[in-house]
């Protein structure tokens, strides 16, 4: 009798929890590096973009209010995954957006898959997210290491820079980027002489650069990002490496260019998914961002806004926050906004155009943050992993 009563109470409790999930607020989580080397390219401003998207959507979906939760993963995979798990289990989170750092994203993607929640990867670069480690619930939205390698790498090799050496951040993202870039270099008839790996958030790059210099390669590929990229670039100039080798930044954000200054970056070619000065809609978004932050948004911050908006549209279309139904609505719809135009493929890769930019010289730059000129627009089908190359089981060949 007593046992029955407990079972009954528990059952009611579960029912209440389940219905709360369908009627309470729709919760969107955002976990990124809020305070360390990647905090400027995404960080707190990225979280604010998700909130803007929710506001602009009207603050409600399916007649339920929308809440945005944010957290700092401190570049630690265990912190990221335990926060994700806590939000899903305790707060009934509906969707998770993963900011920078591939290591944390790979960990969060696993949890999202286990719990059947859509996981939107914005900041992380590793193409494994939609390849070896693909999941029906992961969307890789902004860019990935394959696209960076194909867009920036191909252009350089075709211009005659055949002989490469890599300086690589020693974690998931760096390894992916180095691997994907090597593939592109070799596919275009180039060779990779070697690579040196540095710990994440290293401040002194001089000895790594010295090793790169003794390799006598033509190109130094920087397979790192954020603060690591800027410090490596600065040291490369100091040691005069840019006189004997061509330096290729494989993942460069506009914040990095701003921080280094045009004098240090002039002529650098880079791949990105979005630039604030590309059209009217982008400029409008950028102005709003600038008014608040006194700097221009990075492509990641634009993508944070875009992905949140499109997720809410998919929820509206599906009439539910159920992970499977939302994912199928999302993959079925065309994405078309100021950030980009494209479609999410079965493996979760959002296929959209990528751009090759060149950093302007101080003379060419006419306004604050007027940094890039577009060199080429590469259609999504060519920029990202092709279905034939993919190792993801969700892609039908």
């Amino acid at each position, binding site marked *: 009798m007593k046992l029955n009563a407990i079972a009954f109470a528990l059952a009611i409790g579960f029912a209440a929890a389940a219905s709360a999930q369908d009627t309470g607020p729709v919760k969107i989580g955002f976990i990124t590096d809020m*305070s*360390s*080397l*990647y*905090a*400027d*390219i995404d*960080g707190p401003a990225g979280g604010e973009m998700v909130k803007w998207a929710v506001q602009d959507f009207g603050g409600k979906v399916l007649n339920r209010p929308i809440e945005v939760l944010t957290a700092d993963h401190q570049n630690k995979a265990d912190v990221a995954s335990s926060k994700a798990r806590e939000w899903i289990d305790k707060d009934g989170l509906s969707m998770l957006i993963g900011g920078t750092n591939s290591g944390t994203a790979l960990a969060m993607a696993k949890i999202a898959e286990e719990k059947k929640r859509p996981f939107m990867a914005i900041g992380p670069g590793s193409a494994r997210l939609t390849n070896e480690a693909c999941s029906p619930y992961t969307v890789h939205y902004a860019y990935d290491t394959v696209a960076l390698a194909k867009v920036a790498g191909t252009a350089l090799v075709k211009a005659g820079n055949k002989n490469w050496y890599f300086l690589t951040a*020693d974690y998931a993202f760096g390894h992916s980027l180095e691997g994907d870039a090597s593939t592109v270099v070799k596919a275009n008839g180039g060779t990779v002489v070697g690579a*040196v*790996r*540095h*710990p994440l*958030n*290293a*401040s*002194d790059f*001089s*000895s*790594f650069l*010295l*090793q790169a210099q*003794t390799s006598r390669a033509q190109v130094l590929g920087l397979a790192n990002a*954020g*603060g690591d990229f*800027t*410090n490596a670039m*600065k*040291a490369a100039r*100091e*040691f*005069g490496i840019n006189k004997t080798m061509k330096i290729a930044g494989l993942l460069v954000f506009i*914040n*990095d260019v*701003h*921080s*280094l*200054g045009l004098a*240090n970056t002039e002529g650098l070619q880079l791949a990105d998914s979005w630039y604030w000065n590309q059209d009217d809609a982008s400029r409008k978004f950028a102005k709003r961002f600038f008014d608040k932050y006194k*700097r221009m948004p990075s492509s990641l911050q634009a993508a944070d806004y875009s992905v949140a908006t499109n997720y809410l549209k998919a929820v509206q279309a599906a009439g539910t926050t159920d992970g499977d139904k939302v994912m199928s609505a999302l993959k079925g719809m065309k994405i078309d906004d100021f950030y980009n135009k494209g479609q999410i493929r079965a493996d979760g890769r959002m296929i959209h155009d990528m751009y090759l930019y060149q950093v302007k010289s101080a003379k060419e730059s006419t306004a604050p943050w007027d940094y890039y000129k577009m060199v080429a627009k590469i259609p999504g089908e060519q920029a990202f992993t092709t279905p034939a190359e993919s190792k993801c089981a969700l892609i039908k060949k």
Partner: protein
Amino acid sequence: MEIFGIPHQAFLGQLLLGLVNGAFYAMLSLGLAVIFGLLGVVNFAHGALYMLGAFAAWIMLDKFGINYWFALVLAPLAVGAFGVVIERLFLKHLYKLDPLYGLLLTFGLALIVEGVFRELYGASGQTYPVPELLAGATNLGFMVLPNYRAWVVAVSLAVCLGTWFIIERTRLGAYLRAGTENAALVQTFGINVPMMVMLTYGAGAALAALAGVLAAPIIQVNPLMGSNLIIVVFAVVVIGGMGSILGSVVTGLALGLVEGMTRVFYPEASNIVVFVVMVLVLMVRPAGLFGKEA
């Protein structure tokens, strides 16, 4: 010619770069050692003070057009004054308590200072140009050494020697050392011990800031530059022996070299090798290489 399968040019180059890093370790651990030796405070704010020095130089250049050479003097003075304020406002109340309180206080201060600068200037950092006089590089045959790095080593060695000399060989140094042994007794001889202690903390802060100014043209001036370094510097101080001035200088330079070596043979381990050395040293000599057994 090869050394352990590495071309000797690369080997020498790495040793020299190790020495440059060692110069920073030495200068920072020196400040820590002085503060710990004379005040008994484990100064966790040291990294933040180093960062403040770099930012002070950057702000002076960016906002007021004050060049590197003036910043080299003014930034340490400004940060030293800040150090004096910290000592007067907070630290002086803690001398009678367990050293743990000083550690916690300075750690909290470091977090606050870094947080404020991150809020003001973001995490990407600012670029400080190499002063014109020291721009360019010299080809040493086995490597191209930027002139600025050679300057850093020279300044650091001069500062370390100077500090050691003041503390170990001058009358002022004798007062300082006596003051830490028995403050009450020294006071009865008419020496203002609290003032001396305050200035010592200020001097330690100024040393950290000087290292910061020296580092500014080399790395991005960034709110986290201190916290990236401070843990290694603490390891240096522990290996050298807490409070030993000579120990901190020698160990700083030596560990820079060890790290440089590691970058040749196994780069992935370069950020832990200092801690491996720390573990080994503490197993054999718990008081550190130059520390006195308690």
